[in-house]
């Protein structure tokens, strides 16, 4: 590969397909109902799987009596933790996953699986669940992160001793990890400041709210081979984890991914899949296990609730002299590092001389949390951006100018360590400042807020096959799940490289036995890493195509070049030959060496960090506390927008989810530690009429580590909304909003407290 080919500034001028808005290959099937989602598969003789779940937040499982259930006609298998011998070989993280899938001795949250059945139909399975008798000894529970960190809190796990402290603690606790990031001397920095603001914030737990519930259809054969059709963001990762947990060989478990009705991080973790496999193994029949919506809320992986303290000092001229934060996140009932991620992202938008963040990760009696779109960053940004806004106002500076003055740039040492390459925070802020939205007049009871957000992005392991069909078209087998149109983007990249039209190229998601390992679609890596591998695979195919043309022409391959979808002979000796098209070379493949293909594998490092600035206009009713979003603008750096419509879709989707989180979404737990609102009626994601058209502006600051300059775009868009919307409500009401979501009762109470 030449140096030029990795220089986006040189490559992007030549794009013919990249940057257009072609139709996605999965579109027609999705809008006509043909697309197969998780629950749409069927196998001959399949059984219905259902799970019995703990009604208690924290309880010892004294005894599970399944004797009556197994005797019920139509019941083919009943499983408990006894059916999952420990194959984890001391890997505590895998054991946590196993224990989360099926409680081992203790139920750690309301909804924790304690047993499962497979029966001939749903009615029989439901009856069987009622016949399982579990004897619990109820234990004291804790669901709040700050309470969990108190000395006298009930301790969930006797084996958790805080990791990351200079000395090992003397007692087990719920505080599983301590972390520190930053540089400089914050104490000295605060002394230099003319204005120092300290504030404390809270955010409640939210769920990704994907519309498709988890579903898996598993079939384990007596010979030890197995198949699974499942809705997932990473079928290779599910394959690997399920194989480990069940003691299967990875090569014998073939996992096929369904279409996915949303994941946003929540389908990066196995929940029901090992149960479906274990039930199938025991029943010797295929088993389909599909969660209800209530189960999705109670038993899958929402994101953390948090408690965050921030302190920022600045000079009157607008220079931030020091920034400090302590972030406390709960990861549910097993150890996590979500607070640490929050600490890393908290001040990433700014160029700071003195910065320090402290993270405290805690376990509580709630479901094991999973990633949720830029996991941990939205809560940190909410706390930091509100404090930034308050400091700016306190020194009499426009908050946008204050941010521009302190924005990170190329060469800045980031608050979490690395030195930035070319980045987009400054340009998004300048674009926001110049956006017509910033100048539009506001109506009665309205406020405007703006905020910034950051996400690392991730690359990871990827491999891609490109195959030329005998009729001269192209198929691609990719191993990363398509969550937002990546099959279209990957086909566009291959079409661009081969010099053919988009319609000549189709990409599918291959099953786990057809490709090497691929990491899951997370960290905004899907299009970034897969297109990188696909571009290299296409270039490898071009090498083959040039060889074949050379063979046909009986000239050296070095005298054949590939452009505009055809082989061209070059030089004084051969320059007059008629070019050979892809179609012509493909037609003769059988005579020139067999099928034409290209393969590439990569660990796509240096994904290219991503920044965004959002602007929100909110109207808040001062008598009811109800807030409505009246206008919303997203400005984000995409590196290079391969398919602008899908990039805009990511920007809008992230903003929509962030708005829901900011205003109404939250897990409500009762005093008994049980989840009160495990349904979409009372877990309020926005409906269509709650949202205005979300305007978008794509900036393109190329990522030097991708041939086309692409950065991941999927996650950053959820980072600023909590902050932007809360600052807007603060401006609308005159009362700083420090608790997310800003549900009407919470906002009305804050206004009344202010009046007093």
């Amino acid at each position, binding site marked *: 590969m030449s140096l030029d080919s990795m220089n986006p500034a040189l490559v992007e001028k030549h794009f013919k397909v990249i940057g257009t808005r072609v139709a996605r290959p999965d579109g027609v099937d999705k809008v006509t109902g043909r697309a197969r989602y998780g629950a749409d598969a069927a196998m001959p003789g399949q059984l219905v799987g259902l799970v019995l779940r703990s009604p208690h937040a924290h309880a010892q499982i004294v005894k599970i009596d399944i004797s009556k259930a197994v005797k019920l006609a139509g019941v083919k298998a009943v499983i408990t933790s006894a059916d999952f011998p420990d194959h984890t070989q001391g890997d505590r993280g895998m054991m946590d996953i196993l224990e989360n899938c099926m409680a081992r001795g203790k139920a750690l949250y309301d909804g924790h699986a304690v047993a499962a059945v497979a029966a001939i139909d749903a009615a029989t399975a439901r009856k069987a669940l009622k016949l399982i008798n579990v004897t619990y000894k109820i234990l004291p529970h804790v669901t709040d992160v700050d309470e969990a960190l108190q000395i006298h809190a009930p301790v969930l796990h006797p084996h958790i001793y805080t990791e990351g402290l200079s000395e090992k603690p003397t007692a087990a606790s719920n505080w599983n990890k301590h972390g520190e990031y930053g540089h400089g001397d914050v104490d000295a920095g605060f002394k230099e400041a003319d204005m120092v603001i300290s504030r404390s914030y809270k955010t409640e737990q939210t769920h990704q709210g994907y519309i498709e519930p988890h579903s898996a259809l598993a079939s384990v054969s007596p010979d030890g081979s197995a198949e699974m059709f499942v809705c997932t963001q990473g079928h290779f990762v599910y394959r690997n984890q399920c194989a480990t947990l069940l003691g299967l060989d990875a090569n014998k478990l073939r996992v096929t991914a369904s279409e996915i009705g949303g994941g946003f991080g929540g389908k990066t973790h196995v929940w029901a899949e090992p149960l479906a496999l274990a039930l199938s193994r025991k029943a010797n029949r295929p088993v389909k296990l599909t969660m209800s919506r209530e189960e999705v809320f109670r038993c899958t992986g929402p994101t953390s609730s948090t408690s965050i303290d921030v302190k920022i000092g600045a000079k009157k001229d607008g220079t931030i002299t020091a920034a400090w934060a302590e972030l406390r996140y709960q990861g549910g009932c097993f150890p996590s590092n979500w607070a640490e991620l929050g600490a890393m992202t908290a001040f990433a938008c700014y160029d700071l001389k003195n910065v320090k963040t402290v993270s405290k990760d805690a376990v509580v009696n709630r479901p094991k949390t999973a990633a949720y779109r830029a996991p941990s960053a939205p809560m940190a940004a909410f706390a930091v951006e509100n404090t930034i806004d308050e400091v700016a106002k306190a020194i009499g500076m426009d908050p946008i100018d204050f941010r521009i003055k302190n924005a990170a740039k190329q060469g800045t040492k980031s608050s979490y360590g690395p030195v930035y390459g070319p980045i987009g925070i400054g340009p998004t802020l300048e674009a926001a400042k110049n956006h017509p939205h910033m100048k539009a007049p506001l109506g009665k009871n309205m406020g405007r807020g703006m905020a910034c957000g950051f996400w690392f992005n991730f690359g990871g392991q990827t491999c891609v096959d490109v195959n030329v069909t005998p009729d001269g078209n192209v198929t691609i087998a990719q191993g990363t799940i398509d969550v937002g149109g990546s099959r279209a983007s990957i086909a566009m990249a291959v079409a661009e490289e081969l010099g053919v039209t988009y319609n000549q190229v189709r990409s599918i998601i291959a099953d786990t036995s057809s490709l090497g390992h691929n990491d899951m679609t997370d960290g905004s890596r899907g299009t970034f890493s897969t297109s990188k591998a696909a571009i290299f695979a296409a270039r490898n195919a071009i090498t083959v195509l040039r060889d074949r043309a050379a063979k046909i022409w009986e000239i050296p391959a070095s005298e054949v070049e590939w452009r505009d979808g055809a082989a061209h002979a070059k030089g004084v000796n051969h320059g007059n030959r008629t070019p050979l098209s892809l179609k012509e070379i493909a037609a003769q493949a059988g005579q020139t060496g067999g099928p034409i293909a290209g393969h590439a594998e990569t660990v796509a490092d240096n994904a290219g960090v991503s920044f965004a600035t959002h602007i929100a206009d909110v109207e808040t009713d001062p008598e009811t506390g109800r807030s409505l979003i009246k206008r919303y603008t997203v400005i984000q750096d995409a590196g290079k927008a391969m398919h602008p419509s899908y990039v805009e879709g990511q920007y809008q989707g992230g903003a929509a989810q962030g708005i829901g989180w900011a205003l109404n979404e939250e897990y409500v737990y009762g005093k008994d530690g049980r989840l009160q*609102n495990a349904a979409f009626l009372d877990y*309020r994601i926005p409906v269509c*009429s709650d949202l205005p058209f979300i305007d978008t502006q794509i900036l393109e600051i190329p990522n030097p580590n991708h041939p086309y300059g692409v950065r991941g775009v999927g996650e950053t868009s959820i980072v600023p909304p909590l902050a932007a919307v809360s600052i807007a409500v603060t401006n609308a009401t005159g009362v700083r909003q420090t608790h997310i979501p800003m549900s*009407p009762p919470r906002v009305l*109470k804050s206004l009344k407290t202010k009046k007093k």
Partner: protein
Amino acid sequence: MRYEMPTTAKAAAGLLAKEKGRAFVLAGGTDLLVKMKAGVVEPDLIVDIKAIKGMKDIKKSAGGFVIGAAVPCVALSENAALTKAWPGVVEAANLIGSKQVQGRCTMSGNLCNASPAADSVPALIAAGAKVSIISAKGSRKVAVEDVTTGVGRTSLKKGEFVTAIELPAKKPKSGDAYLRFIPRTEMDIAVVSCAVNVSLDAKGMITKARVVLGAVAITALLVKDAASAIVGTKLDDAAKAKLAAACSAACKPIDDKRGTVEFRTEVAGVLARRAAEIAYARAGGKQ
């Protein structure tokens, strides 16, 4: 479970009376089917009343409107005379659920489901509506406020079911309105709600009023003190403040996932004031 679709009200009442197990009436099914799917109820008998003559009709007469028990809420808004006479009732009925749900759900079902948060019920009570109830022994009429007795409980006896809701004819210089509070803009359930119905004299003075609160007690509350607060006024600021205070005072709400006692009590007054302003304007009053 048995499913029956009788063609006469008498036959339906007979089936309901004879059933020894749990019998349910099916009109729109937007509550019953959801409860069945959730495993909350397991009926032994379902009596579908949609094939009974007149159940899907809206009849207008000098005395008012007779709305069959199986009339879907969306059909109410398509009836121009009804919408003109009782805009508050029609609006309330068309806040239930989603557009799709409104195509199936009925006001009679909304009433008999006996949720404290039912949207159409406060508006019906404010309008002075009555229900016709039939059984194998005969029929009777009761005021809407006398149907619901608690959460999920009604005064209907075994073998009885509602065949129609009757709204009185609209009086000159009168108007009604219904407002509910939800955190979102639609597809939600009332956290607190209020219906107001007023009649004015020639000078714009309120001569009669009915004020009803929803979702702040185990049933909808007809608040007589709130009505007294505005009768004899032109809905001036002092009257509105008294109205709001009377409504807040009448609230007996609970703290739950949808709202706090404090919030419901406060917002009940706010909604009452706002609903009264709309009803007053609809009655032709000028502030």
